[in-house]
């Protein structure tokens, strides 16, 4: 609750800071605001409160998710130094909108009422539409923004219709009220309930880009400015899965037999579509978009096999995924900027293709190493956090006895190794004539912290277990 209030205030403050002549204060201010919000998050630690007339719940799980979301946002903002150099950028507005969007994410994490879920999803999405289109002169960014907006608004409509039907069936918008109806129906569950549940699920699965509702993801991730792609693929995904988990584990656990098959089929589709299509990409950024689809698939395994371990598995996986993704996008930002500067003079391959990474590790050992570790983590190689994330996910499926889901997931993560290793091979074994890239201090800290976190959690995955 405290972070929600503070972030709203800080967002407005940041907008006013934009009036100052000097832009240099904005980045430290945004980072400070995020840190303060992260700190006050833990005021209620080990206590469970309902805030705003029972609209929002604050418990340890929601605080852990909040910490992951705010931590990812902090790292993404720390990577945003390049805004200061870009004349046409408006950093005050970007940071303000980022902070506001986090309010939406936190509402999605702690909602206790479908109204809050809807408002949270919308705050987050509307902010992301703006940020996706923030590169106003760039046609790709424009196109991504329009696609994201139209598809997002469309699925919001579907999600709302689902909520309306659920309300018609259960007479309540609260998670507890819906649960009470689903667990103990007076005259059997009505058709309205099932259709409503399905439409609500479709709306949320769209937001986390699960197949077959993933078609917007590659275009939007590709067209959006890289920094906001990093934000979208970490914060939005984590918040979306937190919301799905709350909804399914609290309200709909009574009708598990109805939705788990549907979710298992969607999981399979997501894993196959994400991983197989990623193999054929030439642009690293687009590969990361498909990779984020495939990771949505791994996260969905835990939901399809909802059980005791799901909570822990989702927390661990989203943390491992967020950290590795931010490191990868951070390196991409630097490399792409360097290549852009070069292509203006010489002409050459696209700044975001795999070739851009050729020979990176020799010239820039730190960048190469950070990228390699994050790729290994995303591929799920042992001694990285990604391995344990996948391990926990897969063990939830084993617990439920969904062996075929497990087989698909293992096969698909083998496919994943192929396209993640393309980057590592390009960096370490290809020749590239590149000058060393200058890495600003903020960048260096973020990359080092992300790498250390990935390896640390890979060596000692038990660190998180005591938390909740």
């Amino acid at each position, binding site marked *: 609750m405290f972070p929600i209030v503070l972030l709203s205030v800080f967002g407005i403050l940041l907008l006013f800071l934009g009036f100052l002549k000097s832009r240099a204060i904005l980045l430290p201010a945004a980072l400070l605001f995020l840190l303060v919000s992260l700190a006050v998050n833990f005021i209620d630690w080990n206590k469970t409160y309902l805030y705003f007339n029972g609209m929002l719940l604050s418990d340890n799980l929601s605080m852990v998710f909040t910490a992951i979301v705010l931590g990812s946002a902090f790292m993404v903002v720390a990577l945003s130094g390049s805004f200061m150099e870009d004349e046409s950028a408006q950093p005050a507005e970007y940071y303000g909108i980022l902070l506001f969007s986090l309010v939406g994410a936190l509402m999605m994490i702690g909602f206790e009422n479908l109204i809050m879920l809807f408002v949270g999803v919308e705050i987050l999405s509307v902010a992301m539409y703006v940020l996706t289109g923030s590169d106003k002169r760039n046609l*790709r960014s424009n196109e991504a923004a329009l696609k994201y907006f139209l598809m997002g608004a469309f699925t919001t409509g579907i999600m709302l219709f689902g909520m309306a039907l659920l309300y018609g069936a259960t007479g309540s918008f609260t998670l507890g009220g819906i649960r009470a109806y689903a667990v103990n129906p007076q005259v059997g569950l009505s058709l309205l309930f099932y259709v409503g549940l399905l439409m609500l699920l479709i709306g949320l699965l769209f937001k986390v880009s699960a197949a077959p509702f993933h078609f917007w993801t590659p275009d939007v991730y590709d067209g959006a400015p890289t920094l906001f792609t990093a934000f979208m693929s970490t914060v939005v995904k984590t918040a979306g899965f937190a919301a799905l988990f709350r909804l399914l584990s609290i309200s709909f656990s009574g009708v598990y037999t109805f939705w788990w098959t549907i979710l298992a089929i969607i999981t399979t589709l997501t894993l196959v579509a994400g991983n197989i299509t990623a193999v054929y990409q030439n642009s690293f950024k687009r590969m990361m978009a498909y990779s984020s689809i495939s990771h949505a698939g791994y996260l969905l395994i835990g939901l399809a096999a909802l059980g005791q371990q799901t909570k822990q598995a989702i927390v661990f996986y989203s943390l491992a995924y967020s950290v590795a993704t931010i490191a990868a996008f951070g390196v991409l930002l630097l490399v792409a900027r360097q290549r852009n500067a070069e292509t203006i003079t010489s002409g050459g391959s696209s700044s975001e293709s795999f070739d851009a990474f050729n020979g990176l590790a020799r010239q820039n050992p730190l960048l190469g190493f950070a990228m390699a570790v994050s790729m290994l983590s995303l591929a799920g190689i042992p001694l990285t956090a990604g391995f344990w994330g996948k391990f926990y996910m897969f063990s939830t499926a084993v617990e439920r006895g969904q062996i075929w889901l497990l087989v698909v997931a293992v096969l698909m993560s083998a496919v994943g190794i192929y396209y993640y290793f393309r980057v590592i091979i390009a960096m370490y074994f290809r020749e590239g004539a590149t000058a060393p890239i200058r890495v600003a201090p903020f960048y260096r800290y973020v990359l080092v912290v992300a790498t250390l976190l990935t390896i640390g959690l890979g060596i000692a995955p038990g660190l998180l277990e005591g938390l909740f």
Partner: protein
Amino acid sequence: MQPTQNVLIPEVIQQIPLTYYIIISTALFVIGIIGVLTRRNAIIIFMSIELMLNAVNLLLIAFSSYRSDSSGQVFVFFIMAVAAAEVSVGLAIIVMIYRNTRSIDVGLLNKLKW
């Protein structure tokens, strides 16, 4: 679908069965979906989305008055407010695209393809 407290529902509303409301709002919703999927003009797609949202509003109000429960009507206010915010952002995006391409045909937007 049984109204829980028959006494509280006004006479006028009871004359039309709840199923009719469900049918008409579903019909509006489907018209909206078809509009989104078939039209190429960004503004018309936008209008279709608004139609979908208003179908939801109608449905919520119908359920709300049949149940004599105000939370559905409160939700409608939230939807209207959020839809207004969404409209402002959406129209801004469309204006931005029109400035760059002199067109609002979504079929022309094909720079991003694998």
